[in-house]
C-alpha cells in the first residue's frame, strides 16, 4: 500500500514548517501564539463523565419507568449470564482477530506479494457489508454442525471477528511499514530475529496502533455482536446473549428487564474502558516514537480519550482511502478488462466520463441479473422449486433495494445535518469541545444496536416504521461522519484560517471558499464509511420478529435478507437479496464515491 501523501499532509496541516519561530514550549502549535491546547485538561472531565453518564442515564431511565430498585434485582442473574455469553464471544473474536492481524499484517507488510495480493484482498473484504454474510454463515454452519448450538456461535464469533480484525490488520501493517528503515537495517545487521525481534523491535513499534485500533475494534464488535444476537431472535433458537435478551425484553414490553440489561452492558463497557483500555493506553504511550512530522504530536499528549476517536477516524479514513484508491473490486475489474483501454482513455479525458460510468453501471446490472438467475436455477435444480411467495419477493428485490437506498440516503442527510455543525462547533469552540467531545465519545462507544429493540417496540407508534428505520440507520452512520468531519475541520491549515481573518473573509464566504473545500476530502471519506455503516445496519433496521404478535417489517433489502433467513425455503431469497445489496454497494462505490474521491484528492488537497 503506497502511503497516500495527500491526506497525510492534510492531517499534518501545517505543511513544511521551515524555520518558523517557535514559541516557548508550552504552546503546542508552532509559530504563532495560541492559547494552550483546549484538549489538555479534558481527561479527568471525560473520566468523570464516563462514570456519570451511565449512572445518570440509568437513574433517569429508572425514574421515568418508575420502578422500584427491588424489581431490577430479579432480572440481574439472567441478564448477567446473557451478558457473560456475549462477552465470551467478544473475547474469542478478539483473540482470533489479534492473532490473525499479527500474522496477516506482518506478512502483508514484509512479503512482496503482500502489497499486490494481501492488502487488496483485505480492502475488498472490508468494503462489503459483512453483516449480510452472517445469515449465510449461520445457515451454512448449521448444516455442517449437527449441534444447533455450535453453528450460530461460530457464525457470530466469525461475524465479530470480521468487524474487529480489518483495522487491527491495517494497524499492524502500517506499524511494520512505517518502521524506520535504519531501525530495520540495524535489526538485520545485528542478526536480531525470532522472539527478540518481536519483543524489542516489532512489538514496541506496533503496540500504540494496536491499542488504539483495539478500542475501535471493540466498539465495532459490540455493535455487531448485539446486532447478530438480535438477528438470531428472528428464527426460533436465538443465541443467548445480551442482544437477544434485550430484544425479547423489549418485545415483551418489559422495561425493567430491558433497563437491567442495558445498565449491565454499560457498566461492562465502562469497566473494560477503565480496567483495560486506559491502562493499556498509558502503557502504550511509552513506546511512542515521534518520527512523524504530521499532526499526531499536534493532537497533544492528552491521553486516550480525547485522541482515540480522532485517531480512529484517521485509521478508518486511511482504510477507506486505500480501499477506494486501490484497484476496484475484482468483479468490476474482471468486467472492465474488455474495454480497459477505452476506459483508460475516457478516464484521462475528463469531459466524457459519462460513457465509462454508463458501461460500468450496465455491466453491474447485467452481472446482478445473471447471478440471480443462476441462484434461482441452482435452487430449482438441486433443491425444491421456488415457492411462489419467495419468487414474488425475489422479483420485488429492485423495489426493496430502492426503498432501502432511500432510507439510507435520508438517514445520511440527517446525519450530515447533525454532524457538520457539531464538528464545526467542536473544533472551533474550545469550550464546547471540552465539554461536548467527551460526551460524544462516551455515546459513540456505546453500541446503539442495543437500543434497536426499544426503538422498534416502544417508539414505533410515535415515529412510524420508516422513522424508526431511519433513526436506527442514523445510529449506525452518524459517528463515522462526525469523527471524520471533526478531524477534517481540525486539520484545516491554521494559516488558511488566519489569511481568511486577515482579509476579512467570514460567514458565507468563509464557508464556501475555505471551510467546505477544506473538509471536502474528509466529507467524502466520512460519507463512504457512514454509508458502509448504514448498509451494515440495514439488516436489523427493517425487520424484527420476536414472536407472532411482535413483528416489525418494512419493504427493504435488509428485511428481505431477514425474511429469507427466518422463513422455511427462504434461502434463495436471502442469497438473492444479499447479492442485490452487494452489487448495489459496489455500484455506488464505483459510480459515485470513487469519482468524487478522485476529485477530492485532485482538487481539494493541501500541498
Amino acid at each position, binding site marked *: 500500500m503506497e502511503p497516500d501523501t495527500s491526506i497525510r499532509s492534510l492531517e499534518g496541516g*501545517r*505543511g*513544511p514548517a*521551515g*524555520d*518558523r*519561530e*517557535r*514559541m*516557548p514550549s*508550552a*504552546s503546542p502549535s508552532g*509559530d*504563532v*501564539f495560541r*492559547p*494552550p491546547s483546549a484538549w*489538555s485538561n479534558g481527561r479527568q472531565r471525560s473520566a468523570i463523565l464516563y462514570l456519570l453518564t451511565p449512572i445518570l442515564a440509568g437513574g433517569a431511565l429508572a425514574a421515568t419507568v418508575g420502578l422500584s430498585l427491588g424489581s431490577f434485582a430479579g432480572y440481574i442473574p439472567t441478564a448477567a449470564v446473557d451478558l457473560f455469553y456475549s462477552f465470551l464471544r467478544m473475547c474469542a473474536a478478539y483473540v482470533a482477530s489479534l492473532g490473525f492481524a499479527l500474522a496477516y499484517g506482518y506478512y502483508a507488510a514484509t512479503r512482496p506479494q503482500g502489497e499486490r495480493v494481501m492488502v487488496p484482498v483485505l480492502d475488498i473484504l472490508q468494503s462489503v457489508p459483512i453483516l449480510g454474510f452472517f445469515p449465510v454463515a449461520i445457515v451454512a454452519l448449521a448444516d455442517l454442525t449437527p449441534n444447533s448450538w455450535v453453528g450460530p456461535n461460530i457464525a457470530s464469533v466469525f461475524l465479530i471477528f470480521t468487524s474487529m480484525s480489518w483495522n487491527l490488520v491495517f494497524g499492524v501493517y502500517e506499524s511494520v511499514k512505517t518502521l524506520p528503515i535504519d531501525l530495520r537495517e540495524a535489526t538485520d545487521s545485528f542478526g536480531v530475529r525470532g522472539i527478540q525481534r518481536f519483543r524489542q523491535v516489532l512489538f514496541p513499534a506496533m503496540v500504540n496502533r494496536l491499542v488504539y485500533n483495539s478500542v475501535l475494534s471493540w466498539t465495532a464488535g459490540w455493535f455487531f455482536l448485539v446486532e447478530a444476537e438480535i438477528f438470531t431472535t428472528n428464527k426460533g433458537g436465538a443465541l443467548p446473549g445480551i442482544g437477544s435478551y434485550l430484544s425479547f425484553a423489549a418485545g415483551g414490553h418489559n422495561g425493567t428487564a430491558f433497563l437491567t440489561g442495558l445498565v449491565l452492558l454499560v457498566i461492562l463497557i465502562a469497566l473494560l474502558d477503565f480496567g483495560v483500555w486506559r491502562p493499556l493506553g498509558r502503557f502504550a504511550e511509552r513506546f511512542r516514537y515521534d518520527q512523524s512530522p504530521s499532526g499526531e504530536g499536534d493532537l497533544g499528549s492528552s491521553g486516550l480519550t480525547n485522541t482515540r476517536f480522532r485517531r480512529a477516524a484517521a485509521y478508518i479514513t486511511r482504510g477507506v482511502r486505500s480501499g477506494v484508491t486501490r484497484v476496484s473490486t475484482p468483479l468490476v475489474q474482471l468486467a472492465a478488462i474488455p474495454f480497459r483501454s477505452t476506459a483508460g482513455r475516457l478516464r484521462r479525458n475528463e469531459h466524457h466520463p459519462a460513457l465509462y460510468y454508463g458501461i460500468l453501471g450496465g455491466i453491474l446490472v447485467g452481472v446482478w441479473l445473471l447471478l440471480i438467475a443462476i441462484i434461482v436455477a441452482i435452487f430449482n435444480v438441486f433443491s425444491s422449486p421456488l415457492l411462489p411467495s419467495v419468487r414474488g419477493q425475489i422479483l420485488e428485490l429492485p423495489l426493496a433495494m430502492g426503498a432501502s437506498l432511500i432510507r439510507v440516503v435520508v438517514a445520511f442527510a440527517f446525519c450530515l445535518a447533525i454532524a457538520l455543525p457539531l464538528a464545526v462547533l467542536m473544533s472551533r469552540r474550545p469550550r464546547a469541545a471540552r465539554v461536548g467531545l467527551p460526551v460524544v465519545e462516551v455515546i459513540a462507544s456505546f453500541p446503539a444496536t442495543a437500543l434497536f429493540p426499544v426503538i422498534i417496540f416502544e417508539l414505533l407508534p410515535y415515529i412510524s416504521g420508516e422513522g424508526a428505520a431511519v433513526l436506527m440507520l442514523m445510529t449506525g452512520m452518524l459517528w463515522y461522519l462526525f469523527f471524520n468531519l471533526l478531524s477534517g475541520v481540525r486539520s484545516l*491549515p491554521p*494559516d*488558511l484560517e*488566519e*489569511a481568511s*481573518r*486577515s*482579509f*476579512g*473573509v*467570514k460567514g458565507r*464566504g468563509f464557508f464556501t*471558499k*475555505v471551510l467546505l*473545500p477544506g473538509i*471536502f476530502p474528509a466529507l467524502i471519506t466520512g460519507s463512504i464509511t457512514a454509508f458502509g455503516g448504514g448498509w451494515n445496519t440495514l439488516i436489523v433496521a427493517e425487520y424484527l420478529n420476536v414472536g407472532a404478535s411482535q413483528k416489525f417489517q418494512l419493504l427493504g433489502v435488509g428485511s428481505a435478507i431477514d425474511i429469507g433467513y427466518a422463513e422455511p425455503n427462504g434461502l434463495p431469497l436471502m442469497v438473492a437479496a444479499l447479492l442485490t445489496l452487494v452489487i448495489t454497494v459496489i455500484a455506488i462505490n464505483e459510480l459515485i464515491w470513487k469519482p468524487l474521491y478522485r476529485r477530492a484528492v485532485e*482538487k*481539494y*488537497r*493541501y*500541498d
Partner: protein
Amino acid sequence: MALIRLNGVSKSFASRHGTMSIMEGITFDVKNADFLAIVGPSGCGKSTLLRLIQGLDHPTTGEITFRDKPVESVCHEMAMVFQNFALLPWLTVTQNVTFGLEALGWPIDRIRAQSERYISVTGLEGFEEAYPRELSGGMRQRVGLARALAVEPAVLLMDEPFSALDPLTAESLREEILQLWRDPQLPPEAVVLVTHNIEEAIQLADRIVVMARRPSHVLEQVEVDLPRPRDRKSPAFYELTDRVYSLITESGTPRPVPAVASPTSTSTSQPL
C-alpha cells in the same frame, strides 16, 4: 508621523506552570513611508508581533494604535503576506487574488480590473487560471503578494515571505519587491517585514527593530542609511550586518548582560 504605534506591548499566556511571558514592553513606531524590518532569533515572537499589529491577536498589556486609533479588531487597511503563502489550493490564481476583494464587497467590475492590475504588477500574467500547486514557490509567493497588494493596504505586513523559497528565487523576488516599493503608484504607505535574515533586512529596510528573546523585547532600533541599490559586498553593508549580528548573539548568551544599552528592553528578563 507615526502610522502605527506600539506602546509597551506585552503578551503572555497562562500555562500549567503559571504565566508565561512571550514578549514584554515592546515599543516602536512605524512611520509613513517606512520600510521597517523586525529581526530577531527564532522564537522571539516576531510573527506574533505582526499578528498583534494587524489585530489578529491581542496584546495582554500595552497598546497598538493605527492612525492614532487603537487596533481592536482585524484591521483591513493592512494586508499580510504569509511565510507558507496561505493560498487556497482549490482556488485559481485569480480567485486567490480576489479573495480579499470579494470580502470587501467591491462591485464585480472593479474586482476584475483590480485583480488584473495586480496580477500584471506581480508578473503573474498567463497564470490566471492556474492552481497554486501548479506553480513554483516563487510564483506562489507572487500570488500571496498580489492578494495582499490588491486590497490596496496602507501597511503591507510580510511574515518571513522569502524563507520558504530557495535562495535564488528569494533574491529575485526581493529585488522585485524593492522595485514595487519604489513605485509611487502602488499602495502601501509602509511595509513591516519580519525576518530572521539580517542581510535581507539590511538590503530591504530603512530601519531595523532588533529583538531578543525570552521574553522577547526590543534590543535596539538600527537606522539603515546605506544608499540604494545596496551593495551586499560593500564594507558599510558588512559592518552593519556585523553590528546587528553581534547585538543578537550577545543577547542570546545564557546570562543576559546587555552589551548595548537599550531604552526599551527590560533588564529583568530571565532566560527560560
